[in-house]
């Protein structure tokens, strides 16, 4: 980079961000710079240091935390293949291999793996400079390679490559109901905060993110907390591997979600809200911004909403940048404040000490969608289906070995057998619930049901066919958590780093009794002592397998004793192949 180029970047960065410089927007500035220059150039960092009064190390530590930000060098086409297990089952490795071969020697392109990109119903998929491409086939890969090799700007690529399908396979009462902008909001204004909370309480709505905390209680706590200001955050960092139902809601029911946030704002007197949109869903940014703008023009956002003096609320969208941990609500708030997404000490909880230390409601996309449904149709309408502790219905994202992947809405209490049958997963040996951190349910237990009482999920439902190796799946999950651990606490940082190598020993049939004991110990330590839910739930599928499917481990053991197993012939096989040495 010449001194003139550096000066230009420095000035350009200063000009664009100096106006209303705000260090809580650091991550947003970095996302913008990455997009503009294909990396974060040093002069841009210097400009940010100057306008935000941050140290170089502080800015670089944020860049280093997020997978989609790079400070090394400009790469014109950064390609990330989604490495979710469903993408792998759909043949992502062969697609990646094909593109790597086609682009051999091309200095404009970089190829790597990323965590689940949320297109599991249309995998294998990839991100190129943050834009999603699904349904990869050899011919689409060849098209992509040709576009890159001839240097076509990404903006000029055929739109057909970027088409994303949002398939609803089964609707129940919530998806079947159309969104009538303002209907629920008008009702909410009529009711007022106390009766809104009462309605939500009667509806039995529990958070759809996974933990299932009662929404009315969360909102009440936020409302009661003394504060100068309160915030509403929509957690659209849908990162649980295998889930994509929030993608559908944000694409087709955005009005409901935004209206749910507006109702929350009315209830707790919040004036600002955020949608924290995962970087993988960048393609939803412009449509969502258009939705927000339309609602401002309709008087449904902004000052004096629907003519109500004092009802002022607006929403901004923050983009994530490739960090699964930011789905954890306190890490999400750190990220919203422009920092590394490290979870906070709890208590205090975000509901009293959240964004900028103020009371903050963080709700999942689907929860906010349901709020709008409830205010439109009433608590009774919502709660009359479902089970005792899990009222109504919820959305699940079905992918993997089934004929009809997509989004399904089911009343709580439905059996896994029913779901597997409906989606055409007749050959399933098991179902992975709630993503990589969730539980593995073997076919013999398909009478268990979807509910907070029995099997909860954040939305992910991956069908595992009989032909699949559970050990291979565990290795994939171990890769995921090694990639996504934030590194803050000892057990998660180190445990997740150690597990892939240990599992590899089983995959190579070189493991011993000692390795098996270490697997169990590490899983137990992570489960018991991790700082947040990511670390404590990371070994769930491993623990399930150790308990339910011990045979997949014994099959990978060369010796059940503690003595290290060493097979000289096997250990030198690769060397002998390469060097064409017949015998050893």
């Amino acid at each position, binding site marked *: 980079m010449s001194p003139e180029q550096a000066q230009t970047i420095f000035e350009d960065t200063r000009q664009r961000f100096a106006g209303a410089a705000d260090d809580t927007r650091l991550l947003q500035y970095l996302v913008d710079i990455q997009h503009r220059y294909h990396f974060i150039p040093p002069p841009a960092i210097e400009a940010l240091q100057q306008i935000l009064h941050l*140290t*170089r*190390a*502080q800015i*670089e*530590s944020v860049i*280093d*935390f*997020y*997978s989609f930000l790079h400070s090394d060098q400009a790469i014109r086409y950064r390609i990330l293949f989604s490495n979710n297990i469903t993408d792998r089952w759909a043949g992502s490795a062969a697609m990646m291999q094909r593109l790597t071969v086609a682009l051999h020697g091309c200095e404009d392109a970089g190829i790597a793996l990323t965590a689940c990109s949320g297109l599991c119903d249309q995998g294998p998929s990839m991100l190129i400079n943050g834009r999603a491409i699904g349904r990869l086939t050899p011919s689409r890969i060849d098209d992509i390679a040709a576009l890159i090799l001839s240097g076509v700007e990404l903006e000029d690529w055929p739109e057909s490559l970027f088409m994303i399908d949002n398939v609803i396979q089964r609707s129940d009462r919530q998806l079947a109901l159309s969104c009538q902008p303002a209907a629920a909001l008008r009702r909410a204004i009529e009711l007022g905060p106390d009766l809104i909370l009462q309605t939500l309480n009667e509806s039995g709505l529990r958070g759809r993110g996974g933990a299932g905390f009662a929404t009315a209680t969360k909102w009440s706590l936020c409302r009661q907390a003394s504060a100068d200001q309160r915030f509403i955050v929509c957690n659209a960092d849908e990162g649980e591997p295998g889930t994509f139902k929030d993608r559908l809601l944000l694409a087709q029911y955005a009005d409901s979600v935004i209206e749910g946030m507006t109702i929350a704002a009315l209830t707790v007197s919040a004036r600002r809200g955020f949608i924290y949109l995962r970087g993988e869903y960048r393609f939803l940014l412009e449509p969502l911004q258009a939705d927000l703008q339309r609602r401002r023009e309709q008087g449904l956002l902004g000052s004096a909403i629907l003519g109500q003096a004092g009802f002022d609320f607006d929403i901004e969208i923050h983009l994530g940048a490739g*960090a699964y941990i930011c789905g954890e609500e306190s890490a999400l708030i750190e990220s919203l404040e422009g920092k*590394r997404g490290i979870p906070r*000490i*709890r*208590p205090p909880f975000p509901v009293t000490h959240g964004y900028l230390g103020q009371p903050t409601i963080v709700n999942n996309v689907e929860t906010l969608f349901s709020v709008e449904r409830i205010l439109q149709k009433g608590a009774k309408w919502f709660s009359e289906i479902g089970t005792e502790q899990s009222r109504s219905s919820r959305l699940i994202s079905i992918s993997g070995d089934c004929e009809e992947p997509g989004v399904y809405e089911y009343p709580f209490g439905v059996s896994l057998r029913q779901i597997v049958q409906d989606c055409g997963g007749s050959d399933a040996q098991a179902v992975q619930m709630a993503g990589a951190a969730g539980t593995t349910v073997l076919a013999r237990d398909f009478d268990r049901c979807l509910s907070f009482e029995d099997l909860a999920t954040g939305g992910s439902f991956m069908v595992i066919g009989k032909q699949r190796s559970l050990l291979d799946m565990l290795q994939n999950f171990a890769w995921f958590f*090694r*990639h*996504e*651990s*934030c*590194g*803050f*606490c*000892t*057990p998660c*940082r*180190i*445990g*997740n*780093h*150690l597990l892939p*190598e240990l599992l590899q020993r089983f995959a190579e049939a070189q493991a011993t009794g000692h390795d098996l004991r*270490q697997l169990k*110990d*590490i899983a*137990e*330590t992570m489960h*018991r*002592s*991790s*700082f947040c839910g990511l670390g404590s739930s990371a070994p769930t599928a491993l623990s399930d397998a150790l308990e339910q499917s011990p045979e997949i481990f014994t099959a990978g053991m060369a010796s059940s004793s503690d003595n290290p197993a060493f097979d000289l012939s096997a250990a030198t096989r690769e060397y002998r192949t390469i060097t064409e040495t017949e015998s050893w």
Partner: protein
Amino acid sequence: MASFSIDQQPIEFEPGQTILQAAMAAGVYIPHLCFHPQFSAHGSCRVCMVRIDGRTASACTAPAAAGLEVENLSDDLQALRRDILQMLFVEGNHLCPSCEQSGACHLQSVAEFCELLMADLPFQYPRRMVDASHPDWVLDFTRCIHCELCVKASREVDGKSVFSLTGRGFDTRLVINAPDGLLVNSEFASTDRAASVCPVGVFLPKHQGFKTPIGQRKYDRHSIEQITEE
């Protein structure tokens, strides 16, 4: 004054104290590494895991409350601590016999207290550049346990922000805020609190290697639970 119990022993506490703070004020030792009384709780090392009314939690982040029954030195908690400490030992290059900090190292002395005799997990042997740029200090980053005490000390006591953690996951590492990342070109001064607060052996003063003879080092005569933290 309200109280709770640790291993059946009553502990009085002030409102707002954590279990670890109350225990330290009462002279009851709960093994820990990333907590230092001068700074806010961090919660990263997980060594202070205790059982509170049956639930396992870190004593440094759990608020004290009247009537809680806290288990501290039971066998299974000490075993859990050994598993956590082992992870720290294999993550970095903790070669006690040749380390200048030996005998004055929290990690070593907490491990001794918890009766960790050897690490059974695979050693990772990280490779990180030593920073010997400063005339009076050398930094060995391969020993860092990411407690951020130096980060906080530099920011809150020294008023400088010389240190930050960067990276993610296992790649998390300590970096220095200087144009070239070297200590000598940062605002660091030898008298900084950041240099003396490290619980392991990242910060080593030059010109005085192995000055304290074996037998007179910090933890040679008293084990860690008998020494008040400075």
